[in-house]
């Protein structure tokens, strides 16, 4: 038993070195957490609790905001910020779960790649709609 320990000690299991990506990911989670605290609350207020309220919300409500001659662009920018921060924050959280609970390296890499692809496609699709939306009605 003791011999085993000594052998393990000699063959150092891993060399630990800097990982800037994790540092920035951590910092991003803190900053986006604060920002989301504010904008998600605002989103809830105007979308669900204010007028027209969760029952009265319709296609026209959203279209009306986005195509409003004065405030249209501001609404779109707000929604874009909400999309980017909420989706990036959430996806990185899922990445943390994969890092922690998928011990097999091949599986982890596969799942992280899939997650990244889904993230990228949905983010691009969402941004594209926000930028290009024109109403025909």
């Amino acid at each position, binding site marked *: 038993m003791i011999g085993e320990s000594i052998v393990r*000690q000699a063959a150092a299991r*891993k060399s*630990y*070195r800097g*990982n800037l990506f994790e540092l920035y990911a*951590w910092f991003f989670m803190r900053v986006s957490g604060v920002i989301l605290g504010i904008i998600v609350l605002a989103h809830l207020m105007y979308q669900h609790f204010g007028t027209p309220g969760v029952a009265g919300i319709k296609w026209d409500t959203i279209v009306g905001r986005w195509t409003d001659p004065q405030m249209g662009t501001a609404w779109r920018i707000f929604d874009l910020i909400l999309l980017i921060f909420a989706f990036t924050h959430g996806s990185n959280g899922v990445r*943390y779960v994969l890092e922690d*609970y998928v*011990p097999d390296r091949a599986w982890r890499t596969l799942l992280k790649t899939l997650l990244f692809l889904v993230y990228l496609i949905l983010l691009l699709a969402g941004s594209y709609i926000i930028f290009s939306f024109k109403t025909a009605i």
Partner: protein
Amino acid sequence: MEKSKVTLKIKRFNPEVDKTPHWENYAIEVEPTDRILDGLNYIKWYQDGTLSFRRSCAHGICGSDAMRINGRNRLACKVLFKEMGATISVEPIAGLPVLKDLIVDMELFMEHYRAVLPYLINDDPPPPTERYQSPADRARFDDTTKCILCACCTTSCPSFWAKEDYLGPAAIVQAHRFIFDSRDQAADKRLEILSDSDGVWRCRTIFNCTDACPRNIEVTRAIGEVKQEMLFRKM
């Protein structure tokens, strides 16, 4: 003082006979101010001499009798029976290989400890008297000097259970003790080691470590300070 009957439910494992650990009950009489360690000693001395556990100082300073008592990591010599119920479960700390009964192989834990260079590094020639440090500079890392390397924190950490390469709270506490020591010159080196994805970034701020620490070190805060220091040095 009035004695009362309690049952100690102990997780036993003998590697020469058992394939898996099993629970065994021991009925003993204790005073409310007896410690769990007294109960274990009583069992070992008078009921079952094969029961194995580590202890040395019996005063909460050597850190050898960390175990999971009623589901929480504690030092058996610092928990009184009156703080616990009539049935008390005692298991080895989790995440390290069990050698026998309540004794675990601490080698991995010590390996992580060594990985953070837990000693003073200062290449300046020693001054004729001492390396002066102001009381304020000393206070900066006072909390983390209290660590006794009992492993209560690291073995209560779900991130460590999930990945044994994670250096763990105890190693980070020990690194903190030197990173914020004004006499030390190797903070950069330690921060480099700790900024590994299995260094501080494996910490998800779960706070089990702070709850487990028998020395009341604010472990999660210390880890947070190390993360912050890394960020400030990069900005």
